[in-house]
């Protein structure tokens, strides 16, 4: 295989104490691929994302379904957390007490892109669901890296916003795996579609080979 391969799963399986979450997963991911995961809730999308993250923790930005935000911290600090590892601890602590101007302008630029700049110093707890989701997205943008793993990153946004955000994400991250329930968006922004059902991969095809209608059954006619 080419040296572009960044992950290969052979017959992978994930078990929970009472049940099997994923089984017989065979998957190769190459650099530059934009992959959409689709499937009903409980089909194993989140588990698959988690599995991939565990295999590739370095240089990977993650947007979990629950956003992974610290409610009592401001948007700025939540976004800044994407790059905690790039600074020494004392620097981070000082920045926690009083944000450095340089960092504020960096983060501000990102917030501008996703139209959240006016909320920069508001605690996340006071934001709406959509604003929180965009905060998590901003964090991943700020963190950067070669791979993005995102679990329903635009579920709380309207279509216009969603498209804007997905465009930004696809521009920033060379490789991404995104769980999406909107099949149209999946086809528009990703070049490969993986369908999951009951913990198994039931579809794995290039976007241009399938239509939105064909994907509907994976969501049970939703």
């Amino acid at each position, binding site marked *: 295989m080419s040296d572009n391969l960044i992950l290969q799963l052979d017959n992978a399986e994930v078990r929970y104490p009472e049940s099997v979450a994923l089984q017989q997963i065979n998957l190769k991911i190459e650099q530059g691929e934009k992959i959409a995961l689709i499937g009903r809730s409980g089909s194993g999308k989140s588990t698959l994302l988690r599995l991939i993250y565990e295999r590739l923790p370095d240089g990977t930005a993650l947007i979990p379904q629950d956003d992974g935000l610290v409610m*009592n*911290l*401001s948007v700025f600090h939540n976004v800044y957390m994407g790059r905690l590892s790039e600074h020494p601890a004392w620097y981070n*602590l000082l920045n*926690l*007490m*009083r944000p450095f101007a340089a960092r504020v302008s960096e983060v501000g630029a990102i917030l501008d892109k996703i139209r959240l700049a006016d909320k920069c110093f508001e*605690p996340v707890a006071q934001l709406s669901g959509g604003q929180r989701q965009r905060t998590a997205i901003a964090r991943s943008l700020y963190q950067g890296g070669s791979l993005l793993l995102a679990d329903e990153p635009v579920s709380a946004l309207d279509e216009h916003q969603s498209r804007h955000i997905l465009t930004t994400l696809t521009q920033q991250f060379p490789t991404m795996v995104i769980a999406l329930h909107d099949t149209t968006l999946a086809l528009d922004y990703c070049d490969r579609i993986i369908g999951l059902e009951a913990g198994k991969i039931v579809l794995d095809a290039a976007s241009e080979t399938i239509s939105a209608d064909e994907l509907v059954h994976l969501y049970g006619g939703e």
Partner: protein
Amino acid sequence: MNTSIGALFNRTVVSLALVTSVILAPVQADDVKTLVFSAIPDQDESSLKARFGKVADYLSETLEIPVKYVPVKSYAASVTGFRNNQLQLAWFGGLSGVQARNLTPGSKAIAQGEEDPEFYTYFIAHHSTGLKPGEAFPKEIAGKRFTFGSKGSTSGRLMPEYHIRKNLGKSPEDSFSTVGFSGNHSRTVALVESGSYEVGAVNYKVWEKMVAEKKVDTDKVSLIWSTPGYPDYQWTIRGDVDATWGEGFSDKVQQALLDMKDPALLESFPRKRFIPASNEDFIAIEETAKAIGLLDE
């Protein structure tokens, strides 16, 4: 929110650093070292500071060095303070004096009250027991509820326990239905007066004072037996005081105590006057303490 956490954290760190430095830095010492003394808290603790403050002033004047009285809360604390050289002079009970001198080589008893060579413990009983005063040890107290005073007291613990063991042939735990430690002599009186405990052992001076001041209802609680006399309270001084304050210092302290004539000062103890004492005067106490297991052989 975030800034308040940060600021608070910041200020807390600074404060804690300050705490450490202040606490660990000792206050500048005086040129002439202060002689510190204390007294066991066996009775009438309140306004001890005021009363013993006068004693400190007297000693300071007579010895021409700074003298300070420091109150302590327990017998053990006074012994420990003496041993650790936080106290150089102490008014001990018989047992605490023996303990202190055993733990502090070179220290010596220098003075005692005129009454102290013949000190007594009174056994007191609640009227419901029907016990009457007598010359002989009241063996009928066996099986009753009994309270000592403080665990480390000579008159409230050591001597009564010694006589109980001697006359009943058993440990207090085996002799009585319940054994309590009231904490001090006036609590002992209060507890026996209420009938909570039927019998108690109390310092005779405290008892007589309480009776004289009508702080106790003698219809409810009365004296039933007095132990034979034994040596009790004494002044003890550390052996290394001469090295600190000059040759013959402990003799000077002894003389100052013996010369204390002001009734107002003597009232603090309360004693008529002080007479010389020596370590040997308390051998009997030491033997007794060993016999009942309060001191190791």
